[in-house]
């Protein structure tokens, strides 16, 4: 048994035989050519042939992995038409009297090293594409046919790095995992693994050995382990886990498109929490019924100056549009001394959790607040947006917020901007807000309980302090009673109430939450289907234990 550790890009466990994909390294020889015109013609013919191949690969990929993933072969075709790339090859043939394949090899290396040096991980992956395209040209020029291989049993593909061309040629029904020496979470291997929902490890510290071909191995995407020739004990353990995951996968897939409803007919909305637009893909993939918490502070944290109204508008608009008619609850800026942003120039504080943060900043520095509100209301006609205000402790704060909202809306209307229907809600995350929730409920359209902060403030336990972990009890009766009180006061006033903290995804509490009447649970995208599964087997008519 040998074991290597890689970076997991898709969870899950697989057992299979190893197939090493090692690149045929062609030593491209440099030759002197006299007839430059015919060498250029030879290159042009190879280029046309490569384009044809890529068209075929595109068609194949569309059928197998869908149009979005297939688009990379369209990009490869465009690379073959890129003037900088072609000029470089042409110039080398002409000025140095060298053969086409050598000119392609050198040009390919030059361009791929430009991408490999970029600071953006995503762009670095484009180096692989340039190499892939260049290798295709070289293979045609030296008349080399890459060997096709047939996979007959569950196979773990092991390689230094996989190019799009290689991945699309694989028989997807037989591949159960990928392990690569290089690559990142944005590499083609990772994207394909996520598409196929199979475990994959990248950046695995190992030296590839041809002798591994055909060996039995286990890939564990949960721990990042790649285990060669596992012991019987390890193999049995893995087999049990594979079966369990398979069962779970089938079950969760079946839950997509189904309602989140208990056996006795109680419905609950299961929404998702997100930090940026790029999370929305996962929201849709996991079939969440809306977005219950869009943490807008990430727009501020990711910027080095105040994000403009237009920038924010574009982001909110896109979120609303992508979600269609589904509700998107956007929380206004929630930063403070614990989530620092340089350009806010906030002072260092002794106790940032109880400091100058969130709505307190917004009501003090109104220009920041108004910019965000204008962006939100402008975006509101493009979908179903709701706005939620964090860290509320008093009725006066809500009154002040509402008077600012009225002014912002009037101003936008006078400027001819169309405004959609927008629900206004507040976070219930301070004990103060809980105690006056009967008064607050008369002022807003919904409550969302932020259990992380509410627990910290109620128990007077700093969650960052590891010494207190042993007394930190997220199921503390004090917190659960507070949640119940908030729900009662919300329903008395006819407004809905959700939970957007970590407790929302706690399956041990789901039944209790539904019994007290929680209307919505907003959780990380990966928990949506598990939560729905839990909801669908509950029967609230059964007597309490």
């Amino acid at each position, binding site marked *: 048994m040998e074991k290597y550790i890689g970076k997991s890009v898709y969870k899950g466990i697989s057992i299979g035989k190893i197939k090493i994909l090692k690149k045929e390294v062609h030593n491209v020889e440099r030759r002197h050519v006299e007839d430059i015109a015919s060498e250029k013609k030879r290159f042009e013919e190879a280029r046309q042939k490569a384009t044809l191949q890529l068209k075929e690969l595109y068609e194949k990929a569309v059928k197998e992995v869908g149009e*979005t993933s297939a*688009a*990379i072969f*369209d*990009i490869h075709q*465009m*690379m073959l*038409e*890129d*003037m*900088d*790339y072609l000029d470089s090859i042409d110039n080398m043939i002409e000025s140095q009297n060298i053969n086409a394949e050598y000119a392609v090899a050198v040009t390919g290396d030059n*361009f791929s090293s*430009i*991408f490999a040096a*970029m*600071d*953006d991980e*995503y*762009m670095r992956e*484009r180096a692989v*594409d*340039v190499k892939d395209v260049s290798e295709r040209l070289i293979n045609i020029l030296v008349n080399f046919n890459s060997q096709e291989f047939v996979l007959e049993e569950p196979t773990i593909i092991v390689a230094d790095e996989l190019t799009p061309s290689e991945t699309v040629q694989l028989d997807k029904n037989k591949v159960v995992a990928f392990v690569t020496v290089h690559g990142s979470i944005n590499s083609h291997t990772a994207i394909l693994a996520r598409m196929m929902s199979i475990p994959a490890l990248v950046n695995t510290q190992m030296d590839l050995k041809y002798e591994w071909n055909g060996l039995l191995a286990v890939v564990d995407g949960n721990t990042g382990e790649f285990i060669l020739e596992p012991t019987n004990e390890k193999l049995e353990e893995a087999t049990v886990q594979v079966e369990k995951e398979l069962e779970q996968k089938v079950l969760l897939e079946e839950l997509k498109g189904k309602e989140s409803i208990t056996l006795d007919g109680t419905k609950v909305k299961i929404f998702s929490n997100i930090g*940026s*637009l*790029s999370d929305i893909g996962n929201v849709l993939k996991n079939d969440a019924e809306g977005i219950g918490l869009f943490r807008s502070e990430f*727009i501020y944290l*990711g*910027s080095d100056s105040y*994000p*403009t109204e*237009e*920038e924010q508008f*574009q*982001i909110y608009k*896109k979120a609303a549009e992508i979600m269609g008619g589904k509700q998107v609850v956007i929380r206004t800026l929630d930063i403070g001394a614990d989530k620092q942003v340089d350009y806010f120039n906030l002072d260092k504080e002794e106790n940032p959790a109880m400091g100058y943060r969130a709505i307190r900043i917004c009501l003090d520095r109104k220009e920041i607040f108004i910019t965000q509100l204008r962006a939100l209301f402008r975006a509101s006609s493009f979908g179903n947006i709701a706005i939620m205000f964090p860290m509320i402790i008093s009725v006066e704060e809500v009154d002040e917020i509402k008077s600012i909202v009225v002014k912002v809306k009037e101003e936008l209307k006078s400027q001819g901007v169309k405004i959609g229907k927008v629900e206004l809600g507040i976070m219930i995350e301070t004990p103060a807000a809980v105690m006056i929730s009967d008064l607050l409920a008369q002022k807003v359209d919904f409550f969302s309980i932020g259990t992380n902060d509410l627990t910290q403030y109620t128990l007077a336990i700093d969650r960052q302090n590891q010494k207190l972990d042993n007394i930190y009890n997220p199921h503390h009766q004090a917190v659960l009673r507070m949640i119940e009180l908030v729900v009662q006061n919300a329903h008395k006033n006819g407004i809905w109430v959700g939970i957007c903290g970590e407790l929302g995804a706690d399956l041990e509490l789901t039944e209790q939450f539904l019994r007290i009447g929680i209307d919505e649970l907003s959780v990380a995208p990966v928990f949506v289907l598990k939560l729905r599964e839990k909801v669908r087997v509950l029967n609230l008519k059964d007597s309490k234990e």
Partner: protein
Amino acid sequence: MKKFEYIITEPVGIHARPAGMLVKAASVYKSSIMIEKDGKTADVKRLMALMALGVKCDEKATFTIEGTDEDIAVVELEAFCKENL
């Protein structure tokens, strides 16, 4: 000469697929179309150069269009950016 500024909202920036779309959109015009970010420029009709510019989400890019069809190109390209980038 016509100019417009645009802030990218596409989450992964002008990477492969959006870059390909932008090159195709720009290539229908006779005008020269350049993109500038942080003092560096690239020809929008040249895919590799455009990708190598590495324009990311939330970053501002300036488009400069010059030629016989610049009036229509500036309007259509800005609309294209809003729609796709």
